[in-house]
């Protein structure tokens, strides 16, 4: 538990980075984890194929909110092609703690929202994917 709720996780939970919304975002999506009530919205500004700005707003457990906060740090300033390649492993690597199966959906909610924001914006024909790791929602 001491490992799961490390100081930097609590820091991101209580002081989320890139918190808030963007006006007229180029891509946006909001989703929740109905089991827990965790909710995250993510807004993206995209210029010349690069995520120039990102904001997220949400509520939920420390794992979901800290993971989303860490994810916004990871995507800011990166090319869309790189952002599209971000997967479960990178997200869990950023979080840096081992997550039990029951809490995996919490840790991956931010990534799911990010992917769907980009899918809605750039791949309108793509069918909604469940979770980035392929587990059904």
């Amino acid at each position, binding site marked *: 538990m001491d490992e799961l709720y490390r100081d930097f996780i609590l820091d991101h939970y209580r002081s989320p980075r890139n918190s808030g919304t963007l006006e007229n975002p180029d891509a946006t999506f909001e989703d929740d984890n109905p089991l827990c009530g965790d909710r995250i919205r993510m807004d993206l500004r995209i210029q010349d194929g690069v995520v120039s700005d990102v904001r997220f707003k949400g509520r939920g*457990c420390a794992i979901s909110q800290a993971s989303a906060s860490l994810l916004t740090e990871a995507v800011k300033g990166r090319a869309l092609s790189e952002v599209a390649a971000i997967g479960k492993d990178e997200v869990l690597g950023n979080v840096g703690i081992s997550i039990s199966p029951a809490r995996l959906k919490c840790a991956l909610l931010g990534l799911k929202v990010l992917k769907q924001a980009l899918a809605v914006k750039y791949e309108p024909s793509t069918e909604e994917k469940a979770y980035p790791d392929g587990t059904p929602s």
Partner: protein
Amino acid sequence: MSLLTAPPQPSLSAADVARIREDFPILAERPHGLPLVFLDSAASSQKPVQVIDSMDDYYRRYHANIHRGVYHISELATEAYDDARAKVAAFIGAPSADECIYVRNATEGLNLVAYSWGRQHVGPGDTIVLTEMEHHSNLVPWQILAKERQARLRFVRVTPEGLLDLDDLDSLLEGAKVFAFTAVSNTLGTVNPVEHLVERAHAAGAIAVVDACQAVPRMPVDVRRWKCDFMAFSAHKMLGPTGIGILWGRSDLLQGMPPFNSGGGMINVVHLESSTYASPPARFEAGTPAIAEAVGLGAAVDYLQAVGMERIHRYEMELAAGALAQLTQESGVTVYGPHMAARTGVISLTVGDIHAHDLATILDSAGICVRAGHHCNQPLMEKLGVPATTRASFYLYNTPSEVDALMAGIRRAKALFKIS
């Protein structure tokens, strides 16, 4: 002492509870190498060996379909299935076992009323009254009925303390066809004044449908005293198996209702174009039912009656009072729901800014099982202004030292989250 006044029944002693605990094999499990502290019985209770064995015995010795075979073991199965129904009827004070319909769970029982009675009696402009503290299972079926029939839903409000606001009950009920409400809130532990609510429903000409999921397991329930019209509950919350529950309904109402599910077992005569239906309860039990589960439910009723519902209720109230006393002293802890006199052993709480799921994860690491989330009660959560709470619930096998373990777990969570 007057002969009419029964002496007050004692609660359970520590020795009683120690004996009871020996009947529950799961309590010997050690998750994460620690003793299992199971504080989630409001979601689903654990099972005594008597229930497990009764179902095992059925499958090993006399499994056969019921009401069909003329051979010996089918007769045994049929008898066990009907015996269990009679036990349940006696347990809840039902005038007749035929008024007890086996369903999958309380949810299916409430759906049965909404679909069968509701479609027959609720029409455009009619009013259905519910409360703001209903479990989704006693909300969504009525929403669907109201939409289908262009009926209106009205809600008895919940006060900030977690009680039903009864000030305008009569005006809400005016002209209503149905008043459906829970006897005990699954989130706040509030014990509602069922007899009064039923009486006001009847005064307004409405039928009273009681969700008794949290009441039947933890307090004496008598439908003749409540005078309600329908009552639904699930076996798995009262030491019985999953997959079976009971809808009790007043005989005259059941007699007039059309089938909910249809097929084998619920008919009298079948022609290619039409059929006539069996009398209740068979009319509402289409298809091969959950026979082993009925046997298990009967064993659960036997177990609860042997211990005594009044004693179980008192003991649970003692545990809850002890927990509430500690929780309200603990800094950073917010307890939801009413004062002790109006509640039972279901306690919802939050700790500082710790999300319910984080608290539940930390408690789990100490072997403590609690529920975290919205408890199928989203409108009530909105009212309380929290996305989720952590819920601890107590039952006959819990002990005061498990309450202490809960408190220790909460203190550990506070330390991890640096909450003073």
